[in-house]
């Protein structure tokens, strides 16, 4: 549960602690985190463009890229050592960002295509 003490989750936990006994509060906090993770953020690829080009997400968020072009793309995030499989039309790739920071990424096939995931704590 250590990671629940990170900034960003703190406010929610505080509210829960005020309202509920500690054990229940932690349980709800865990559920809240799951709900947050399930609420994935989607980045689409149309016309060789990542959209939105910059997204800001809380850590623990899974970002899913969906290729809607009729040419393959792939997602490369060097700073977190991630390289997706090649994404043909309508294929997608998901990655969960657990560490706060700014992650620049690009298309491994068409590197002029770039985007940013800003992961908050």
């Amino acid at each position, binding site marked *: 549960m250590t990671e629940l003490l990170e900034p960003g989750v703190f406010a929610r936990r505080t509210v829960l602690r005020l309202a509920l006994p500690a054990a229940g509060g932690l349980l709800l906090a865990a559920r809240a985190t799951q709900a947050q993770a399930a609420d994935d953020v989607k980045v689409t690829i149309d*016309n*060789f*463009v990542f959209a939105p080009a910059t997204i800001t997400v809380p850590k623990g968020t899974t970002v899913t890229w969906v290729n809607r*072009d*009729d*040419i*393959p793309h*792939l997602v*490369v995030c*060097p700073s977190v050592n991630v390289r997706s499989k*090649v994404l*043909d*039309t309508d294929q997608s790739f998901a990655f969960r960002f657990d560490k706060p920071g700014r992650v*620049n*990424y*690009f298309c*491994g*096939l*068409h*590197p*002029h*295509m*770039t985007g940013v995931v800003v992961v908050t704590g």
Partner: protein
Amino acid sequence: MGVAGLGDCTGSAVGLATEANDMNGEMIDSDGIDRRGFLRCMSWAGTAVVWTVAAGVPRSGLIGSAQAATEGLRFAQISDSHIGFNKAANPDAVGTLQEAIKRIGAAQDRPAFMIHTGDVTHLSTAGQFDTAQKVISEAGLTTHFVPGEHDILEDDGKSYLNRYGKGTQGAGWYSFDQSGVHFVGLVNVVDLKGGGMGNLGHEQLEWLEKDLAGRSASTPIVVFAHIPLWVVYADWGWGTQDGAQALTYLKRFGSVTVLNGHIHQVMQKVEGHVAFHTALSTAFPQPAPGTAPSPGPKTVPPGELRSLLGTARVSLVRNDTPLAIVDRPLAG
């Protein structure tokens, strides 16, 4: 695109003539003289261009091109076969490759060999490589390959290198000599950087410098790679980051021809003694730079497709009438 590096129309003795052949016809525009409005003359130590594409695609002429067609070394360039592509722009990329290969194999003046400037496959799968190899081998010609970015999507490029990497260096670069011409195959699709374009990398550039060192400046050089070595259009990544460095090693040579693919259309530029050409794809056309929201496959009416696909033929030209006339490609 205009023709750059125009000079004073004086001389050279050895060169290469390039023809782009579309899949509808073999029209060679040999009139050369009539299209005054589009012609530029230049000093060109060798590399003479004959683009022959019907249906409005850019074409160029060369004085003495008829002669060139029957003399010397002739080889074919094929590019961007994208085996596995099946979208609207061309549901049958295997079929159009077969047509192109059949045309090359059946030519009266058969080329001595072929080069393939990459994107043999669409997704680097073993099946796609197998299909491509089967079709390409039907020409009955030795074929020299360089990879496109679509060929190295699996296992760090091993699926490509296992087939075509024998005797090559690094990610698959190499050189060879034929009929007095020095050929250099470069790889500019590996270790690409975000926001960048094609990339040769330090190791390959060092190798290139050594490969060229000590060769006579009168040796005709043909460099081929997938992504254009010159910057065609940076907004779409159509260029090579460190291509200029490679060109510094080529500057002293009297005749340099750079053959690329990647952009699925004919473009050409001349700078000093260096002529840059890009080839048609055999799979699908792409839009001219900046004319579409993206460089994605261009869907055209079925009757037009074959006029936008094709191959190129390149001939070694030896003559005493060095004047080359290159016309400005007619955009679109």
